[in-house]
């Protein structure tokens, strides 16, 4: 059963069209809440008419026409809208007629990017940014978002309402970011996409199979952003990073669900399609950037692992260099701990320990269990077993994760 216009076919059109529909409407009405309401009205009209009339040849244009017509109705009726349109007319330097309004040309790229910027507005909490991005840019339903976040639909709906109110109060949809702001907002968008990705990637709670949806959604948003802002190297850097991490999804858990560390993974299980896409995105990031940004650097590190046929063949010297650049860029002590691991692999355990000793007093690393854990590892390699044992025990006391704790306690008792 494929022909005939079913609810399923209409939903498929909606998923393909909702982003640019809402994005175009935001440009026209300058109000995220109103834009979404109008888009929903158009969807309701489609659900009423298409089962008998069939899906029109250009369903996107059909939905847009209906939504714009509704907008004009609103525009005629409401004082508040009048104020919005008066403000818009002032901004554009002329009165806006109904014809202008209906004939407003499509600037899809600008529209969708603006929608992304609005969804990641600095006035919103990070949680609200993620939810709105999934809803308005990703086209996910409240129900789907609730499933991905293991929460209730009511909670998500509430979050969306509150976020829209915050945006309206901030006048978020009315502003056009300046060139300098644009860079900042793009960074925020990249951050939200990567956060969504990581929530999917490192999920430990709930039924596992629900969460990969977040990874897929983040990858898709990354691809969209690549089309919208192709000249920004970090856009490609982020895509590369997510693709390369995705290539390892199947290999990073054992049959019993326990995690397999990168160096112990069966490399034949890494997905070549993701790898190819990741490496070509990294190429684009590297050719368009003078200095690599944080996402491109992390992708370049992931690429070193992917390019090594065996764990032993890993180019640790290069990885240590990349971590050094990353540490300089981010000033993150956690990155330094990773660099210590790479140094240990590249130049021997003493080199790693030397760096760790410099980090030991940093307040940011108090309670960070990987510091003693890495230290223990390096000490064990040097044959300083008593010290190593003490470090593993210390790390075990610091971690909140049960599986990790037992792993560390095992190592403590094995070391002698």
């Amino acid at each position: 059963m494929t022909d005939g216009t079913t609810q399923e076919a209409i939903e498929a059109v909606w998923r393909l069209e909702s982003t640019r529909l809402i994005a175009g409407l935001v440009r026209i009405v300058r109000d995220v809440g109103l834009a979404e309401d109008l888009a929903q009205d158009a969807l309701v009209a489609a659900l009423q008419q298409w089962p008998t009339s069939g899906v029109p040849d250009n369903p996107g244009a059909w939905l847009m026409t209906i939504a714009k017509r509704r907008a004009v109705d609103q525009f005629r009726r409401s004082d508040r809208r009048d104020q919005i349109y008066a403000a818009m007319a002032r901004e554009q330097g002329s009165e806006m007629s109904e014809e202008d309004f209906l004939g407003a040309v499509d600037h899809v790229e600008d529209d969708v990017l603006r929608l992304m910027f609005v969804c990641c507005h600095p006035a919103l909490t990070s949680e609200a940014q993620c939810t709105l991005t999934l809803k308005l840019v990703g086209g996910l339903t409240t129900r789907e978002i609730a499933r991905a976040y293991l929460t209730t639909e009511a909670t998500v709906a509430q979050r969306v309402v509150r976020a829209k109110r915050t945006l309206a109060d901030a006048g978020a949809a009315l502003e056009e970011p300046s060139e300098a702001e644009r860079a900042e907002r793009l960074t925020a968008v990249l951050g939200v996409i990567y956060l969504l990705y990581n929530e999917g990637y490192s999920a430990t709670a709930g039924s596992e199979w629900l969460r990969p949806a977040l990874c897929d959604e983040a990858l898709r948003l990354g691809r969209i952003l690549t089309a919208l802002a192709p000249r920004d190297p970090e856009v490609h850097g982020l895509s590369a990073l997510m693709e390369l991490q995705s290539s390892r999804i199947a290999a990073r858990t054992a049959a019993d669900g326990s995690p397999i560390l990168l160096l112990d993974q069966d490399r034949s299980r890494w997905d070549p399609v993701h790898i190819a896409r990741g490496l070509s995105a990294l190429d684009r990031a590297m050719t368009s950037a003078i200095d690599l940004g944080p996402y491109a650097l992390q992708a370049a590190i992931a690429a070193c692992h992917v390019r090594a046929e065996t764990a032993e063949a890993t180019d640790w010297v290069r990885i240590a260099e990349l971590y050094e650049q990353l540490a300089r860029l981010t000033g993150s002590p956690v990155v330094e701990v990773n660099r210590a691991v790479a140094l240990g692999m590249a130049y021997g355990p003493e080199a790693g320990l030397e760096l760790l000793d410099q980090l030991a007093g940093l307040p940011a690393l108090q309670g960070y269990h990987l510091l003693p854990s890495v230290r223990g590892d390096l000490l064990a390699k040097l044959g300083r077993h008593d010290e190593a044992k003490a470090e593993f025990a210390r790390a075990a006391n610091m971690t909140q994760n049960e599986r990790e704790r037992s792993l560390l306690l095992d190592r403590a008792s094995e070391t002698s």
Partner: protein
Amino acid sequence: MRFMALLKFDESLPGGPPPPELFQAMGEYAAEGARNGTLVDQGGLLPSAAGAIVSLVDGTIKAVDGPFTEAKELVGGYAVIEVRSKAEAVELAKRLMQIHKDHWPGWQGSCEVRQLGES
């Protein structure tokens, strides 16, 4: 979920080369696929005269150069798309047919939509 869409048609049907409007519309279609994140990879294929078929029948491996005159429908292009339902893949394939209907009068063919097995 990923799907492979295979565009198929009968090479021997008259109609001449595709009109430039088709290329332009196909370009738009691909750009839209990039913008909404559905298009992962795509390519058009040259006529079968430029290809070959390698077969294994009754224990014999044989290579035959194109054109493949005996085949009724041949793959002329492909796309790998990433969507969230089969209905979405079908909708995208319908749009592809619509483009051919609008810009290449008399053209006939099909788009086979197949889900990729994923590890």
